[in-house]
């Protein structure tokens, strides 16, 4: 498809386990973002990639969270030693960049993570 693709759409795991969430951005979009949305709240910024590098990771809540984008396209958000408070919908967005400035963000459907 032409949109931002996220897998899995749903993930149920047990407290303490490791999870990976994948994002496949729109082709040609060099900017990629991860957001987290808790029930009844607006999305919260986690991390922003420009190409392969994390240009801003100030939203990652602690060192259990890590994200990579090794080839400047697909990104993986990794969560170690999951806690119940990590339960949320993790949204990925991508954006075209013109003259160094990101444009409008296009969001994926999200990965719903439930930690039991």
């Amino acid at each position, binding site marked *: 498809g032409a949109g931002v693709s996220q897998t899995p759409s749903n993930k149920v795991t047990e407290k303490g386990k490791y999870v990976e969430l994948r994002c496949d951005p729109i082709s040609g979009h060099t900017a990629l973002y991860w957001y987290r949305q808790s029930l*009844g709240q607006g999305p919260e910024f986690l991390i922003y990639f420009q190409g392969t590098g994390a240009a801003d990771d100030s939203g990652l809540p602690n060192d259990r969270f890590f994200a990579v984008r090794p080839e400047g396209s697909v990104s993986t958000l990794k969560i170690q030693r999951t806690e119940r408070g990590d339960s949320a919908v993790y949204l990925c967005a991508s954006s075209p960049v013109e003259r160094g400035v990101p444009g409008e963000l296009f969001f994926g459907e999200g990965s719903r993570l439930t930690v039991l």
Partner: protein
Amino acid sequence: ELKVEQNPLFLSMQEGKNYTIYCNYSTTSDRLYWYRQDPGKSLESLFVLLSNGAVKQEGRLMASLDTKARLSTLHITAAVHDLSATYFCAVDTSIGSSNTGKLIFGQGTTLQVKP
């Protein structure tokens, strides 16, 4: 720290009525977005407002931006049931050529339009 506050958080209205959702933000920004989210779905971009005094309209929705007052409004005209959804405003925290596209979202306004 940038804060974005929406008002009201929940709105129940009859079809055919008009109403306005307000979005206040606490620091300077030159980009503001409005998104729509249906239950269990992702965010759909409605409007991008880039300058003071900007006004955009699409169907029954009209958005405006006052950067001096740090206020944006989303006005609904003659509401219909299909407009029932949650609406978010989001403010770009970067300014000028250093725009990173990093957005701070409001809490969302859940709109329920009754037939």
